[in-house]
């Protein structure tokens, strides 16, 4: 290769290297990968309260029977909605159907987030006294049984990439979106439940993708918003997308665990 050719190749590799380096944590020393807790780009731990500025009459009170407004339900779901009977749910011991992962963070209440260990983020709710575990780098073990909170796999959001795209050398381009701060959680293995307390159903094939975004306001208030994408081929005609807003509290003095109720 000529000297000029080597010059171009060197420039291209310099470009590629700088682009790849930009995707790692700033200032990360070389060595073995650090655990998710150590490289967390934001701190989501603490007590948070849901502030109900949206969907108030579907969240702060149990909506009227038959009210599925805003949710893209299938005709099959409509039959379930019209048959909703909270007394039957209580009698059957399934009063937690509205407290499953797909609907849990829409309920009014407080959440408490802590690191259970270096690779597991724990989210507890006082509404229904539920616990979700966000496991980094984990896949559901074979044969895992469905549960109200299912199996959640977490990662710090990776830079955007076109799905299925071949690897490219970044000639004449740099990569953007490399400074992600969101927590991405994918949840499967859920027991069928309700998206709302008035019996809007999700089925056993449901999956859930969530993005937790942290931000701080000029008045010092800290918030996170979780964007939730529910996919259910049985009861939804397409993805059901909501975003729920939580404000940080100084301590757990307002934490008030309550049991599930179907009413």
């Amino acid at each position: 290769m000529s000297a000029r050719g080597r010059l171009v190749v060197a420039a291209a590799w310099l470009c590629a290297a700088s682009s790849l380096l930009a995707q790692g944590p700033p200032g990360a020393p070389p060595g073995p990968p650090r655990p998710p807790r150590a490289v967390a780009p934001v701190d989501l731990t603490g007590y948070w309260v849901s502030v109900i500025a949206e969907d108030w009459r579907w969240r702060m009170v149990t909506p009227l029977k038959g009210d599925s407004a805003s949710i893209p339900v299938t005709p099959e779901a409509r039959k379930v909605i019209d048959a909703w009977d909270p007394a039957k749910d209580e009698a059957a011991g399934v009063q937690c159907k509205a407290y499953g992962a797909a609907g849990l963070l829409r309920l009014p209440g407080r959440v408490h987030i802590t690191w259970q260990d270096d690779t597991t983020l724990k989210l507890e709710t006082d509404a229904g006294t539920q616990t979700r575990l966000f496991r980094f780098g984990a896949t559901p073990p074979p044969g895992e049984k469905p549960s109200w909170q299912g199996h959640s796999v977490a990662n710090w959001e990776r830079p955007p990439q076109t799905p299925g795209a071949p690897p490219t050398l970044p000639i004449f381009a740099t990569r953007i979106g490399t400074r992600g701060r969101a927590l991405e959680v994918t949840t499967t293995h859920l027991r069928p439940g309700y998206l709302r307390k008035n019996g809007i159903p999700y089925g056993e094939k449901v999956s859930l993708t969530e993005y937790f975004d942290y931000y701080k306001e000029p008045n010092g208030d800290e918030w996170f918003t979780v964007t939730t994408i529910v996919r259910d081929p049985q009861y939804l005609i397409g993805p059901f997308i909501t975003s729920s807003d939580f404000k940080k509290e100084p301590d757990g003095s307002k934490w008030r665990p309550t049991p599930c109720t179907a009413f």
Partner: protein
Amino acid sequence: MARSGVRLLAPPFRRTLFVRLAAALLFACASPAAAQVDFSGQWAPVYHEDNAERIPGPELADYTGLPLNDAARLQADSWDADRISVVSSYQCRPHSSDYGMRGLGNLRVWTELDEKQQLVAFRTYMPAWGSERTIWMDGRAHPPEHAEHTFQGFSTGVWEGNMLTITTTHQKTNYYRRNGVPASDRRTVVEHWTRHGEFLTVITVVTDPVFLTEPLVRSQNWFNDVGQALPAFTCEYATEVPGAQKVPNHLPGANPYLTEFADWYGLELAATRGGAETMYPEYRLKMGAPHSKPPDRCQRYCACSGGFFCDVNPPRPAR
């Protein structure tokens, strides 16, 4: 036989091409990214929250979820929807930039770049009232307080990681809900834009010293819709109520419709009046009984989940 197209070039030009190519590569690497995230494209709104309020429109006197003060309630209670028909300045009144992100929000976003391909501004277009907006990314300051106020206001943005944080001032008076809940021209709006794959989430935080007792935080979602094309918008003024001599309104204490919303949906009347206290979970502990006996089942806007095809009174299921 030439092994590549480059071999076909004469030597002096080839040498220049190599040097230029290497220089361009190094320049591309040395230059900071034009943006942390590219929000450019066609975005279709998702109305999976408050659909009945945002599409067909809110019920009268529904102030739920809004941290209103008494001044805001007083003004909202005087609202009469005939005002839109009678008062010409209301007929083609645009959505402000903050309400526009909540209301009829098909959205196109593109970038303005300078000659060095650095980001100067994001620009947005929404066909509802033909609203165009500029979000300056070049570090310029906001104008002084006495500068002109517009429906879109003056917006500047900064990056916080992949999140774009926008501050908007200088908006005209508008509304937080299309049933007369007012927004003052002294409000400041902070937005946080985040893109997760094909989804865009915009969080809006409104601080309004005139009508809100605490910041109003809401979040809206879009999906990337490569097949979307947005039309132009036209609005013509017309006399819809011939001979009208006054601005339709309800004087304090004289609005007969303020309890309808609570009665239709089986709600406590005090909760429908809004206020910061009603937005926190503990309010459920002190919430009183419904204003009247609730209906056995939903009777209004029960199945709205898409666009405008939302029946007020859907057919009852066969019994």
